[in-house]
């Protein structure tokens, strides 16, 4: 019951946030520019085009009514037609989403593994040089954003020692007929190891660039909460009972120490997804973010708005899932 209630509260809160997002997007895209119609039309549009658009978006009505019409369209998934690509925005956006999702999840996996390993290492050998190395490494990695890591990786593994692809998502020669846009997922299902290898080769560098700062955050935070947990009496008790240091860290301290890290990883994962915008650009990876920048450069407002709303939806969803996961994993909240 308590569980259900807290889930419901989160859902309501998420709905309010999404409404706020809609208002902001509407204000930025429709209210701020001087003549939104002009920005929505390709060059060389006729007066008839203008009139049609004006009727469609209700520009003759009050700004409040315009918002309601717009919101109604958005809720139904109708973001209009892209000006530069002349296709429905929803289609374009959904075609690109899988590429960005695959990249983000790959980056998250790397970050969790890398950061978790560093945290455990630093805790196991706390007070030694190994912990110092973890601290310094994490501190450095943390202060450099993904954009710079991407450039550094391009220089190191694309130019100096070119073993990875630093451009694109897949080699054209290997572009087998995919039936979905989840290339990696599909390649794994079809057991095309050559394709898997090629996809991973393309994905590894951008994913690593996105993962390094998050890995550093996980390493720092998890290590800190592990160390705090190691001082609690129940961990001392486990030690006096003959468990090894290793087993104490993994079985006793870790389950309790993950909880605060988990909340943070949720927020940071949304930052990571946000980072794909520039990283995809940097590595010419054909995802949503790359498309977003093109859309901005081409002043393709319907497309921009579709992408922004999709990102916002994704972010709130991630936060919602993390919040619920936190409740499920924490017995104190589960049985409150």
């Amino acid at each position: 019951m308590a569980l259900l209630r807290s889930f419901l509260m989160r859902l309501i809160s998420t709905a309010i946030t999404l409404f706020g997002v809609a208002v902001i997007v509407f204000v930025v895209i429709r209210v701020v520019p001087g003549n939104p119609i002009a920005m929505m039309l390709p060059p060389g549009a006729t007066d008839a085009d203008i009139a049609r658009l004006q009727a469609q978006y209700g520009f003759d009505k009050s700004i409040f009514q315009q918002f309601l019409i717009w919101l109604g369209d958005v809720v139904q998934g109708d973001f209009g037609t892209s000006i530069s690509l002349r296709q429905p925005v929803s289609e374009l956006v959904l075609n690109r989403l899988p590429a960005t999702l695959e990249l983000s999840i790959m980056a998250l996996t790397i970050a969790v593994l890398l950061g978790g390993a560093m945290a455990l290492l630093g805790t196991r050998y706390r007070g030694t040089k190994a912990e110092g190395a973890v601290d310094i490494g994490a501190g450095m990695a943390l202060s450099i954003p993904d954009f710079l890591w991407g450039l550094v990786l391009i220089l190191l593994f694309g130019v100096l020692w070119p073993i990875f692809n630093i451009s694109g998502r897949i080699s054209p020669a290997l572009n087998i007929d995919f039936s979905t846009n989840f290339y990696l997922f599909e390649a794994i299902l079809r057991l095309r190891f050559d394709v898997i290898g090629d996809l991973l080769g393309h994905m590894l560098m951008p994913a690593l660039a996105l993962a390094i700062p998050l890995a550093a955050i996980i390493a720092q935070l998890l290590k800190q909460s592990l160390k705090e947990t190691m001082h609690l009496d129940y961990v001392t008790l486990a030690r006096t009972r003959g468990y090894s240091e290793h087993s104490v860290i993994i079985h006793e301290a870790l389950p309790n120490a993950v909880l605060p890290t988990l909340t943070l990883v949720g927020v940071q994962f949304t930052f990571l997804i946000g980072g794909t915008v520039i990283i995809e650009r940097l590595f010419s990876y054909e995802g949503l973010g790359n498309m977003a920048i093109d859309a901005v450069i081409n002043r393709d407002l319907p497309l921009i708005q579709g992408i922004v709303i999709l990102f916002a939806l994704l972010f709130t969803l991630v936060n919602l899932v993390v919040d619920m996961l936190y409740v499920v994993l924490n017995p104190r909240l589960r049985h409150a």
Partner: protein
Amino acid sequence: MRPFLSIRNLSVALKNGGLILRNVSLDVAVGKVHGLVGESGAGKSMIGKSVLGTLPRALQITGGEIWLDGVDLLSIPPAQRRKRIGATAALIPQDPLTALNPTRRIGPQITRRLVDILGWTKADAQARALELLEEVQIADPARVMRNYPHELSGGMRQRILIASAFAAKPKLIIADEPTTALDVTVQKQILRLIADMQARHGSALLFVTHDLGVVSKVCDALSVLYAGKVVEDAQMRRFFCRPVHPYSRALLAATPTYTNPTGSLMPVPQSVIDAVEREVVQHDRRWRA
């Protein structure tokens, strides 16, 4: 024949040099309760931690012997020491709120080590846990085994910790301020329970506390510590009737009691503090020379 726990000339120091324990020696025989008394910073908890091998990382044992059941723990390799301690000793910790893993149910917290470390069968461990919870007077032990720690009161948790400490029939129990976090009425129940369990199992009990009142209720003998040095070692009754060391006397005089109607309290006089400080300095000088 040595007593069950015999600490000889134990010294503990900060890794950067400061002394925490200065040549502490004490014996606890099977079936006896030995109190360790002192103010905060006196190092009383560090003795128990040295025995159990849970000293903070900034500290290290710099000398002495800890004989447990005829073996000097400091002369055997760490892994072996850990096993020995796990099998023969147990800790009752201070704060029942942090001494149980919040993410795990009570049952496994008692039974897991019996299975993992001591090789019991699951059914045996389960039966033993139920039996113990009954022994520490917990109603409906089967239900409590399925509870999470946060669902139980502080007093209940301390009972569970006591039950858990006695689970593997240890010969030595170290209780580190086990009632400091509790209300007096609960404290009384818990103190009685610890005394009962100790008597029934015939374990040796090392009882760390800052409260002379508590000592007079549960201990057979005690050591008074100041700055990591034992200033007085005495049988319990003798200590309260005729404390020998001026610091002990001052400590007794500073303890408020409601039976004293005039209520005059003597703070520990500076002269006494100076005297013990001098003793400590002399000790250090002798020891360095």
